């Protein structure tokens, strides 16, 4: 398949997965806010702006944070940006994806850019974010059921699972404040927070069924990081990404795996052969940032090996000029 097309599918899938993660994060934080009641001191929102670089974000109005996460045009990971980018990529390759996928994504996009959507998101956030999430999940479902399970589909899966592993790591990092914040140390309160963490990874019910235990911090982390069967865990995601990558690599590369295969193989093996107490011993943050860094590395290798070569990189062109020339091609 064309490298350009593979690249667009890969990113289309990553953006879709990210939009799901963002909408979940907002939805769950809203719920948590309701549970927290009138505990004004507990600022659930500001940390979501990404205080991961060490400097704690200043306290901001919750609605402003929500706006930033969902609609801010300058935020490339905003829900709206994700859906717009996914739709843009899909538009470029609509001949290579199924019409059902394209239509679903286009409808989702039109619903989100609609002028009333910002108000809707504030008026009935649960309904709004649920709809968006379902719309994005429908794209994933349609990809699975309407694409030929060949190379394009493998790139779709690869994008989706790498993004998911990255997202789980990021969400856990962002929410680590929940695990320590708050003045009260009541057990009840803590349970609510850990449940929220599970929910923001779409994992609460699966956790309950799997352990049928009370919510315990170490178990929650184990579930989200290391569960081999649950599709929202980092371990599962990396494994699925690995299978997708194996589907892409040619059979003759088996004996001489390329750097992308090697990097993903090592990461997958590391997660697979780590126990939860080892993670906690070394520090959760260290583990999470290691996973994130190495996921990016894998994506970087994939880009250079399959998606771009010098030819593409050597032709930078301002978008506006490109658009003008494309538009000027006469269609009689």
């Amino acid at each position: 398949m064309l490298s350009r097309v593979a690249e667009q599918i890969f990113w289309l899938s990553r953006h879709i997965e990210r939009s799901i993660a963002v909408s979940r994060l907002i939805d769950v934080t809203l719920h948590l806010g309701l549970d927290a009641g009138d505990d004004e001191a507990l600022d659930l929102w500001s940390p979501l702006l990404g205080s991961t670089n060490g400097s704690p974000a200043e306290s901001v109005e919750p609605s402003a944070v929500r706006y930033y996460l969902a609609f801010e045009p300058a935020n490339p990971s905003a829900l709206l940006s994700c859906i717009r980018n996914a739709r843009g990529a899909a538009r470029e390759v609509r001949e290579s994806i199924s019409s059902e996928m394209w239509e679903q994504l286009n409808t989702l996009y039109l619903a989100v850019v609609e002028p009333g959507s910002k108000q809707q998101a504030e008026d009935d956030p649960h309904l709004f974010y649920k709809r968006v999430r379902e719309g994005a999940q429908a794209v994933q479902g349609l990809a699975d059921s309407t694409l030929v399970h060949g190379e394009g589909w493998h790139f779709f899966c690869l994008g989706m699972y790498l993004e998911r592993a990255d997202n789980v790591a990021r969400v856990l990092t962002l929410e680590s404040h929940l695990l320590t914040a708050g003045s009260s140390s009541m057990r009840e309160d803590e349970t609510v927070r850990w449940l929220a963490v599970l929910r923001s990874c779409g994992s609460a019910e699966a956790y309950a069924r799997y352990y049928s235990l009370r919510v315990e911090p170490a178990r929650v982390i184990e579930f989200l990081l290391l569960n081999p069967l649950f599709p929202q865990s980092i371990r599962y995601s990396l494994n699925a990404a690995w299978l997708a990558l194996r589907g892409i690599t040619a059979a003759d590369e088996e004996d001489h795996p390329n750097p992308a295969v090697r990097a993903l193989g090592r990461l997958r093996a590391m997660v697979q052969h780590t126990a939860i107490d080892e993670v906690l011993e070394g520090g959760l943050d260290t583990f999470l940032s290691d996973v994130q860094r190495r996921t990016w590395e894998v994506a970087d290798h994939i880009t250079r090996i399959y998606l771009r070569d010098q030819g593409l990189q050597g032709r930078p062109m301002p978008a506006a000029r490109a658009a003008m020339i494309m538009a000027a091609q006469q269609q009689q």
Partner: protein
Amino acid sequence: MKPAVASPEAPRYEPGDFWDEMFEAPGRVRPHYRTLARRLASLSPDEVSRRQAAAELSFVARGITFAVNQGPEGIEKIMPFDLVPRLIRPDEWQLIERGLEQRIRALNLFLHDLYHQQHIVNDGTIPAELVFGARGYRREMCGLDVPGGVYTHVVGSDLVRNREGTFFVLEDNLRTPSGVSYVVENRRVLKRVWPALFRDHEVRPVEAYPQDLLGVLRSVAPPDVEDPNVVVLTPGIYNSAYFEHAFLAKAMGVELVQGCDLFVDDGRLFMRTTRGAERVDVIYRRIDDDFLDPLAFRSDSILGVAGLFAVYRMGHVTLANAVGTGVADHKAVYAYVPRIISYYLAEEPILATVKTYVAAEPDDLAYILDHIDELVVKAVDESGGYGMLVGPHSTRQEQEEFRTQLRANPRGYIAQPTLALSRHPCWVGDHFEGRHVDLRPFVLFGRDGVRATPGGLTRVALRRGSLVVNSSQGGGGKDTWVLGEC
């Protein structure tokens, strides 16, 4: 129109002093429209409007749009769709089909001649400066034999009817005719929102067009290629017809490529894939000649492929349509097409041609300057309804401006009598009104012959009284039915 007539508030449908496709006289429906008229009469205006809205929604959801503004932030619009189909009788279609086939065969022989011996110029049948000075003429094509002698694989000629109902060819689009995706999509949408209509009529299908196109493209592959690799070359998403490029690539099951996906190596053309280079044999290209290859044509082109033209000249890749076909759909050459037909085929033209005054001829120029208020003046190198003066609808000042331009650059213009284009009932708000229409059938030409897809795009000038049907000028479309023999 019955529903409008039936409801007392609605104004009565007025065919006016034009050829109305549906009515032969006020209140008298043409025989082949009677079933449709009965069906329309059974609906209330609300129901018609509801179906109209459903059709529009379907276009938006499917992203069947064209870009109006240029640039990354350009707005996407749907082409307005009118849901009353335009019906064509079998005998009318037969005339169109035979007439277009004749025209296309003659024009391809003309192109072959121009790029080889040039008999038609040498014996003075057509002025040398006219063809060699035309913007679409490419001397780089001289001496090159294209596979099967086919230059124009895809043609979308524009036909109109005058007051008497006679079909005229208004222009031949021989380079990158567009709109065929609307032919197929309009049909699909109408079937979805108004299935009952199809039960009453025998409508010839248009859905096979992409497969026919693929057959034509494969038939003209370089001779040494067994299983040709066909691609569609698009300028990219900001092009107004991008939807169509994607539509065709998808329906044919071939790759949609951009210039940056292709490269030339060792006299062959390749595309970059995730598994390395893959050879390309046939390109259905939707970019202009000028932009195909920065080495052969415009050096600032970033859409094309460096070295592509050299590969083409070696016969290692086929371009559809061929390079240099623009000379044959030049607006001044159009005036000579009847002569071209009799010159190469020794036949009388089957389809009428509009009387054309070529401003480069002194007598014609004098006539145009005197009668500019009755004529349509067109710049020969423009299309899409740009650079055009519709005499009867113009102001004195506009006429004066065109007179000045005509005197300064007579070779840049032609003029034709203003045609009273035929009209068709269209749904306007809550009732039917007559709107001017044209017809663009799509004709394919490969090694196995000429094939016209039974149907075409009926373009509608949506503004009351307007004669300009181009989508860039606010025109809409209708599904077009060629009725089967009954």
